[in-house]
């Protein structure tokens, strides 16, 4: 079994949002829906520094589904629509099975990485965007990062990684000690989000 995940170099991330935009376009995300967002850790307002002048601080974190080893969402899904793929470790969402109960949304400690289509998805573009092989978005369905499953099927990296302007994002198999990501995680200091929740996220922020 593989364990696919991300390593994101915080020093190289400048919060440009190209990852979020690449994800949005590639996955034909409806208006107002973002599966990946870049958040700043600093002051109260967007993109602002915290601390004091001379010792100000701001770091960016590109955040989406953490594709956890021990995903809280999977445990609570009453119909098995949310599941962890046995061979890849990718946390997946079966739109056709989803009954829209949003238990997964409540259970996931990473607030906001899921979206729920309350209405028929809308697109200002008026045309279907993104890759031809992504599933259509459905009303009353919970959605989230698929790790660009359709791209992985073609041997491509997730859109966010392929689009990272700062080359801060690395994708790969954390179970393969020879992979670039494993080497980074083995040699660099890192942070993970909410490790105390026991979800064992597969996203490493290299610091």
């Amino acid at each position, binding site marked *: 079994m593989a364990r696919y995940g991300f390593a994101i170099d915080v020093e190289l991330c400048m919060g*440009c949002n190209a990852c979020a935009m690449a994800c949005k376009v590639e996955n034909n995300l409806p208006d*107002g829906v973002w599966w990946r967002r870049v958040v700043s850790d600093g002051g109260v307002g*967007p993109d602002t520094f915290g601390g004091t002048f001379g010792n100000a601080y701001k770091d960016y974190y590109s955040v989406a589904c953490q594709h956890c080893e021990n995903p809280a969402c999977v445990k609570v899904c009453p119909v098995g629509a949310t599941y962890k793929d046995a061979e890849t470790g990718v946390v997946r969402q079966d739109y056709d099975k989803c009954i829209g109960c949003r238990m997964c949304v409540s259970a996931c400690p*990473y607030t906001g990485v899921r979206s729920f289509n309350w209405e028929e998805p809308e697109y200002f573009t008026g045309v279907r965007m993104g890759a031809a092989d992504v599933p259509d978005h459905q009303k009353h369905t919970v959605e989230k990062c698929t790790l660009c*499953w*359709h791209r992985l099927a073609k*041997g491509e990296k997730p859109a966010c990684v392929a689009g990272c302007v700062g080359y801060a994002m690395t994708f790969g198999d954390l179970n393969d000690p020879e992979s670039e990501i494993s080497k980074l995680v083995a040699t660099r200091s890192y942070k993970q989000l909410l*490790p105390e929740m026991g979800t064992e996220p597969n996203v490493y922020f290299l610091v």
Partner: protein
Amino acid sequence: MTEPQGKAGGITRRSFLASTAVGLGATAIALNSPNMQAFASDVVPMTEDEVYYGRCMFGGCFNCEREIIVREGHVVATRPSTRDTAFGRRPCARGYNHTMQSYSPMALQYPMKRVEGTARGDEQWERISWDEAFALVIDKFGTAMREYGNQSVLYGQQSGTYGLISGYQMYRLAHMLGWTFIEASVDNALGVGQNRVTGSGSANVMYHWEEQVYNSKNVILWSTNTSEAYVQRYRHLIMAQRGGTKLHCVDPNETMIAQRSHRWYPVRPGADIALILSCCQYIVEQGLQDTEFIMSDSAGTYLINGETGNYLRMSDLGVEPTEGPVDAMTGQPTVVDPYVEWDRVTESAVEAGTAEDPALEGAYEVEGASCTTSYSMLVERLQQFKPEDVAEEVGLSVDQIHELARAAADGPTMHFFGYGAACYDNGLEMGWAAAILMALTGAYRQEAGRGTNNQVYAVPIDWSYIFSGGMAPSISVLDIGNVIESGTFKGEPWPIKCLFLCGINLIGGAANQNRVTEFVNKLDFVVTTAITYTDNCVWSDLILPAAMHAEREEYAASPLDFTISYTPKMMEPGFERLPLQDMVRAFADGFGVGDEFSRSDDEVIARLLSDSLFTSQGITVERIKEEVTVPYRTGTFWVRTEGWTTPTKKLEFYCEDPTRSIRMENESEMTEEYMDHLPSFRKPREAWEGTEAMQKYPIICQSVRAKHRWHNDGYDSPWLKDLEPEPVMRINPDDARERGLADGDYAEFYNDRGSCVMRVYTDAALHPGVVTYPKGMDRRQFKRGTYSALTSSYCNPVHVNTSFFDTCVEMRKWEGEE
């Protein structure tokens, strides 16, 4: 941070950033990788995608190559180019939006005329046909040109329209018709100042930045907010630093690149000149200058006649000037009157270049005149800037100045300039002082790590084609209001009656907006051609919808690297949008110069690229179409190999004629203080403690790049608005506290010129007493007013640059309705 509020709700940063764990590499367990079959795709596409390659066309940006997917006649996706593009650039968030503008809710669709009887700005429009639109322009402009002269049509074009086919054809037409150009007066000062040392080519001392940065021992970043303004370069700085290069960031504010640099020098806003000259003083005092380079490339040994203030010439020694080659411009023989050096072997003044041991320093009596080497003149001036004397004014410690000076001298050192420090009324001196520092330390010669500006302005296309029908006059945007109101320019009658805006953000972007709308409203007829409904459109009488980026073929020459690029037409123009080049042909026909624009687009490009620089490298239209991005090489050091273009043909520490190469607008302000032969620290006109303005309005107002806009391009994008929904003023927490302002409040910012209301957030990175606003927002996105109403439009007679940062404001909580 970005917290778009869509249907999905916002991520709450605190919810997970509050508790993060730090660990050092966990041991990974080896298991087999899954077979790709594991990822069986969920959907089988029903149609075949067409894949195009094309480049962004934002003016002044990197023009990154992208892969663009077209399905059933519509652009449906943008991806990073999978081909080997220049330095692995990938599109930024704006680049994804760029190809999608055809779908913008604010995209123009049809030619529209202001409804008769309504006022400008009422936004009441009537759809008309293209035939009616062309007839209207030709009638209104034609009438004005006949009655008041061709200059009576005012024409504005900037980086919003700089495609080689469309933009340059329109540019050529306007020149041919003799309209009056609006000179945008942005980012001028740095180059004009540097030209005092290097000649006319300083803006081109920029070569293959991404290669040089890794070869530099030190990189000095002068007011460049790289992580936001140059996202494609940020990672190179970080990676170079990881490889041993030291980054030194000079910026009043603690920007992200400042925070991540080896050293950050929080210079007082507007005091960079004093800092640079102080570094120069320390370098010379410590003997850290590159004497070999100074001797070979500068006019430092040339003598200055103390009585006249001019360079001493052989004619002053009684040697008759001789005739040189005929000047191609004047047709007359040039006069050869060599400069003079002091030869320490013969103890005499001799023709420059002939001394056995030329003196770099010293004062000498020559033919009864007291003469000093130009280098010594500089050194004497520098004594006014000893670190211990200026440290307090500069806002740094003596040790900090010493360290920065040593970094400049310990090459290879690369200087990377943003425009911030030159955005004061002393911007020319900033460029001038910086060039002197680079000349003193040999930064101009070093093979690795050279003095650099950030843009190539003079794209080497064949400009003789552009100007084949004549070259029209231009007037600064800072002065044009006076010309419109007085009907005169430099004492000559100069009536202006009509305005044509094409890719210039005049209304919304130009300084002192209340003044801009005032003078625009004095004109009889205003036309805007644009792709989206911009501020310019709002204040126009006629709007002409141009085809979007994906809807037409275009070529571009990138201003930030050395490439010519091609973007094919990928979809049909929506509604009735027309490619600008087609509009140009219709206008040309209407104004009787249609024959001059009968070339096909391919023929135009072939003509523009007929310069030997391209032909010698096998760069043809066919090749560009096939390869999309074609790099071209210039000399490894263009300016130096072609020789310095100063009067002495050397780098000059002493400027004999300060009026040389300056812009002579606003001559009434041309006072003695601008006639200095050596750089000095002229204080900012407004944004400096003690000025009358600052006593009333004690906060310095600076701009930063909006991260998700390029100029105002993309203001209308629903996606970009999710990421950056409204203009936000960032303020220092102490300044906010003093005024009772809290994060998320709306506040009014005001001065004598105008006011605006924006949301505020505190930002600890800001120098106390400084606020910053993001450039690129549309006027209609403000709660009230616009930040451009605050900025000064003072027209400095020397550099004629908009001093956006030389602006003071005060702020108070907005008590109006939400």
